[in-house]
């Protein structure tokens, strides 16, 4: 997050050569290089990092995607694929000497097959559009990242996006059947199939969440699910976040997998309530939203049990949504958490660690300590069902010292997530943002395995270089010498 804006001068000769090569098979207006044309692509949702790309290519079909990759492969030009640019980890940050490959023009829903409950879509299709198109058949696409009105399905595949319903309905990897992928050589391969598995290695799973480092997805066949007959949500307030955490465990222990289970701490509810009037009690240390969906009978039975569990777990207030509008209002607060927090502070930095749920109270205590240490405020929203924590660190980017403190704060939270047995990213991806934290989560042997796999797909390292997987060299330099269990992480590397 240290805004490492590369100010690399553009190699004009190379830029001309790349544009000429691409314009040989694409309309000139779809190959951009003028400063004012390429500047809109300088960052994605992680706007602290910016870099103007050398060239932007806007293919209109799969053949053009393949031809661009083939040309870049031949000329050894690095390529960064971009969907809607909503990613929060800088996965689509361009390279100053590279081509930014926008899939935005590939935005058609090719077909919907209600009988087999699947839809074939192009990568630039917005996540929510699939559910909208499938609604006529009583079907929907389950993964619903909070950016779903804007984010593209191709980006979802690249990041293995989740959403508030993934404990019950899974992540992107669980909800896609087949993808067409263009390799860096410009060849098309199909992974997955019409059935529920395919022959050979599960490259569909490997490709999902690979952050554009292994190939470029040109078409996706997603699984559609029947819309649940109904849904209801329980709002429960606690005067202690540890107790709220225990309530979550009690729901799971009772054999219930809620459709959604979200927690917000007091700083988050205080930010949200004046903004959306969701009806959250702002005197509570933390609130839980617990949703049940399914048939009417199922929901009635489950909601009654959840209500009882919340009361037994020490909630001082338990409310059940009485109708659809109240259910949506309860959710509106949670969904508005990021923008609401954004109103409290010029900037905020959203973290994405996942932890074993039982360590929640300890992690929140740790974060409270860090607030003092870094003299910055932090609000927490939490996909409580699956342990995915989103601390929102408030800072002012115009103050360089705050930016630095926010970054250090974030890195320390991620370190804590790893220490309690979790991970540095649950759904936002590593991108450029968390690349140094990868050195803490993995040892050099695993990073080497990742590089070997990358090499299997992209021998010359042209697909989205510098993202997702750090080089061993970088880890050694980042070092700050993370010594784990008395062992140096990269003993084989020279130190600088």
């Amino acid at each position, binding site marked *: 997050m240290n805004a490492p804006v590369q100010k690399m001068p553009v190699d004009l000769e190379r830029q001309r050569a790349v544009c000429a090569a691409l314009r040989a098979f694409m309309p000139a207006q779809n190959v951009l290089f003028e400063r004012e044309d390429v500047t809109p692509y300088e960052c994605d949702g992680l706007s602290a990092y910016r870099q103007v790309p050398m060239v932007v290519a806007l293919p209109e079909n799969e053949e053009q995607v393949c031809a661009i990759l083939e040309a870049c492969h031949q000329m050894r030009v690095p390529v960064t694929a971009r969907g809607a640019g909503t990613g929060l980890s800088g996965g689509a940050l361009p390279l100053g000497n590279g081509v930014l490959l926008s899939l935005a023009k590939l935005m058609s829903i090719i077909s919907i097959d209600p009988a087999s409950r699947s839809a074939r879509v192009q990568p630039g299709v917005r996540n929510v559009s699939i559910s909208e198109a499938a609604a006529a058949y009583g079907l929907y696409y389950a993964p619903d990242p909070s950016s779903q009105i804007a984010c593209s399905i191709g980006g979802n595949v690249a990041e293995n996006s989740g959403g508030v319903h993934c404990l019950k309905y*899974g992540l992107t990897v669980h909800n896609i059947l087949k993808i067409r992928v263009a390799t860096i050589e410009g060849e098309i391969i199909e992974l997955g199939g019409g059935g529920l598995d395919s022959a050979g290695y599960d490259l569909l*799973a490997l490709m999902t969440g690979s952050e554009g480092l292994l190939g470029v997805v040109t078409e996706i066949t997603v699984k559609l699910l029947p819309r649940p007959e109904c849904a209801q949500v329980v709002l429960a307030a606690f005067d202690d976040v540890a107790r709220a955490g225990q309530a979550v465990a009690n729901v799971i222990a009772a*054999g219930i997998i809620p459709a959604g289970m979200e927690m917000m701490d007091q700083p988050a509810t205080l930010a949200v309530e004046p903004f959306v009037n969701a009806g959250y009690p702002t005197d509570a240390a933390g609130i839980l939203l617990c949703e049940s969906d399914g048939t009417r009978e199922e929901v009635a039975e489950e909601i009654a049990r959840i209500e009882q569990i919340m009361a037994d777990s020490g909630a001082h207030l338990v409310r059940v949504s009485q109708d659809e509008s109240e259910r949506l209002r309860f959710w509106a607060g949670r969904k508005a958490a990021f923008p609401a927090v954004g109103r409290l502070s010029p900037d905020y930095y959203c973290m994405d660690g996942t*932890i074993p749920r*039982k360590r929640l109270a300890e992690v929140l205590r740790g974060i409270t300590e860090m607030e003092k240490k870094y003299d910055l405020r932090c609000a927490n929203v939490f996909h409580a069902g699956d342990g*995915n924590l989103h601390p929102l660190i408030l800072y002012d980017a115009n103050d360089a010292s705050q930016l630095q403190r926010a970054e250090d704060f974030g890195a320390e939270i991620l370190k804590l997530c790893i220490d309690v*047995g979790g991970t540095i990213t649950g759904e936002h991806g590593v991108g450029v943002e968390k690349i140094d934290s990868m050195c803490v989560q993995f040892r050099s042997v695993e990073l080497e395995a990742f590089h070997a796999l990358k090499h299997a797909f992209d021998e010359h390292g042209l697909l989205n270089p510098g993202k997702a997987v750090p080089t061993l060299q970088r880890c050694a330099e980042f070092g700050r010498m993370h010594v784990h269990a008395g062992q140096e992480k990269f003993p084989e590397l020279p130190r600088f």
Partner: protein
Amino acid sequence: MSDTPKLLAESIRAAADARRPLAIRGSGSKAFYGHALQGEALDVTGHRGIISYEPTELVITARAGTPLAEIEALMREQGQMLGFEPPQFGGGGTIGGCIAAGLSGPRRAYAGSARDFVLGLRLLDGRGTDLSFGGQVMKNVAGYDVSRLATGSLGTLGVILEVSLKVLPLPPAELTLVQEHSQAEALRLMNTWAGKPLPMTATCHADGKLYLRLAGAQAAVKAAAATLGGETLAGADVFWRDLRDQRHAFFAGDSANNLPLWRLSLRSTTAELTLPGTQLIEWGGALRWLRSDADVMSIRKAARGGEGHATLFRGGKPGTAVFHPLPAALMKLHKRVKQAMDPAGILNPGRMYPDL
């Protein structure tokens, strides 16, 4: 026990140096599956035991040699289960073998597959390097998903040491209905129902009968049963277990005299297959078991017609490719992936494809 990974790693390193193939061996319950193993046996059953199981975290971590039956018995005590209902052929099977084979049972179409429930793996690659991928949390997108890549790779990418899986609660109520239908009608019904919010967890069509398992809240199961109709099956647990473990009459008799058993994984709406032999359908139409002496070409063609693939699951002529041939570009990529994980090509070579 704690030395087992070290000893296994040494065996792998020695084999890699000598380019000597290793045949990874668990309980042997799926020895029939895939091409015959060649090379020196590498027994992994000694590495066993449950490392951690926390019902409220919905996660279990076990060493690869732990018997599936032991894991399922422990989970049952806590009111939980493995959501993908893995087969235990011959009542055997280890959790490592289960994940290496990547096979799922009757619940697959409704709850997810073996790879869907994998959260993390510890494995030894073809150099004997001890690697950990994924973790013990539900959501984790740090690094490539090697855990799911290795699931179903039949030991050709690494020797699994530990497995972390997401678990599910046992449903409070379960009921199986039986209706009489032709295959075409059963296919139509299974696909229609799957598009409706019904608490369905398994389907099977065999011998003119359609079996549907409903599970969930008591009231929901009762209401769905009333809507769908049909006879309630007594001894349903035994029926689904026998189906899962291929003890159902359709699979009975595995002698050389029997017709080869094919497994076709297809788009669920694929029309009734017109191949000679008998069929049993699962997974709402997406899985077709076929006992047939039809020629390999026509079976593979039928699978392609359903946008899927055909596996020679048991029996058949020696020399027949067990797994569906891959397009050239895809096979090239497979070889490179194999090369990345097992450069000396010593882990279960040829079990899946001759070149892997």
